[in-house]
């Protein structure tokens, strides 16, 4: 029985981590046109610990992408410098969308495992019925 609660627990941690990743991705996408915005990147790490020794997943500290900001030529922009350029964000929409799709797939896989563990334990419980 505790195997199943471990399985549910781990699946939940996976769901949480993936949805947090999705949250940061949507922040990046929403700020794609914000001048000076650096895209946030988030990674995962296994959290060993506790007496059960199972590897829950959690998100690591958020880092910001230190690559060059895009320089956009627009002399009419209020933040433009003498040359008529201003710094945009370094968000690449293509990368963000692909990453979001991957997060969605992983989320679905975790959800499926949760569903299956639940079904297995409820089958076990139904042994008690006559």
């Amino acid at each position, binding site marked *: 029985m505790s195997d199943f609660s471990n*399985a549910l627990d781990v699946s939940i941690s996976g769901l949480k981590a993936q949805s947090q990743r999705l949250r940061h991705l949507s922040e990046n996408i929403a700020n794609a046109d914000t001048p000076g915005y650096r895209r946030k990147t988030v990674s995962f790490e296994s959290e060993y610990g506790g007496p059960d020794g199972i590897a829950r997943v959690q998100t690591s500290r958020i880092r910001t992408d230190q690559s060059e900001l895009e320089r956009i030529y627009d002399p009419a922009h209020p933040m433009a410098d003498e040359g008529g350029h201003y710094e945009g964000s370094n968000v690449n929409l293509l990368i963000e969308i692909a990453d979001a799709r991957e997060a969605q797939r992983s989320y679905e896989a975790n959800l499926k495992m949760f569903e299956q*563990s639940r079904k297995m334990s409820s*089958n076990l419980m139904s042994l008690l019925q006559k």
Partner: protein
Amino acid sequence: MLDRIDLFKTAFALARHSGARQATIAENIANADTPGYKAKDLQPFSASAATTKDASQIMVATRSGHLAGAHQASPINIIEARGRSTNPNENSVSLQEEMLFAVEAKRGHDRALAIYKSGLRILRSSLGAK
């Protein structure tokens, strides 16, 4: 009482093994995007059955591999799954493979519970209960 009957013992061992495998697979899937995570798996049920010490408790089979009897609830060892492809971030979880193993675990669990249930039914009818 029920644990003295070989059939129940074997069914119990298989159900326990499948439950533990489900938990391990859930762990792998939750960590599918964790850099550096190595996929884990259990020893196959037939292998843990073969290590049963007491010779009198081995089921007699006309062909090897026909009956996989595990009478004792032998300790379940978690091993590192080898020979899996590795991603550039040194993660060796493949979602497709894990889904396949999850289905295996579910089927094993269902099979064990079905055997257990039918054994219970036979016992009940021998007691004259409806």
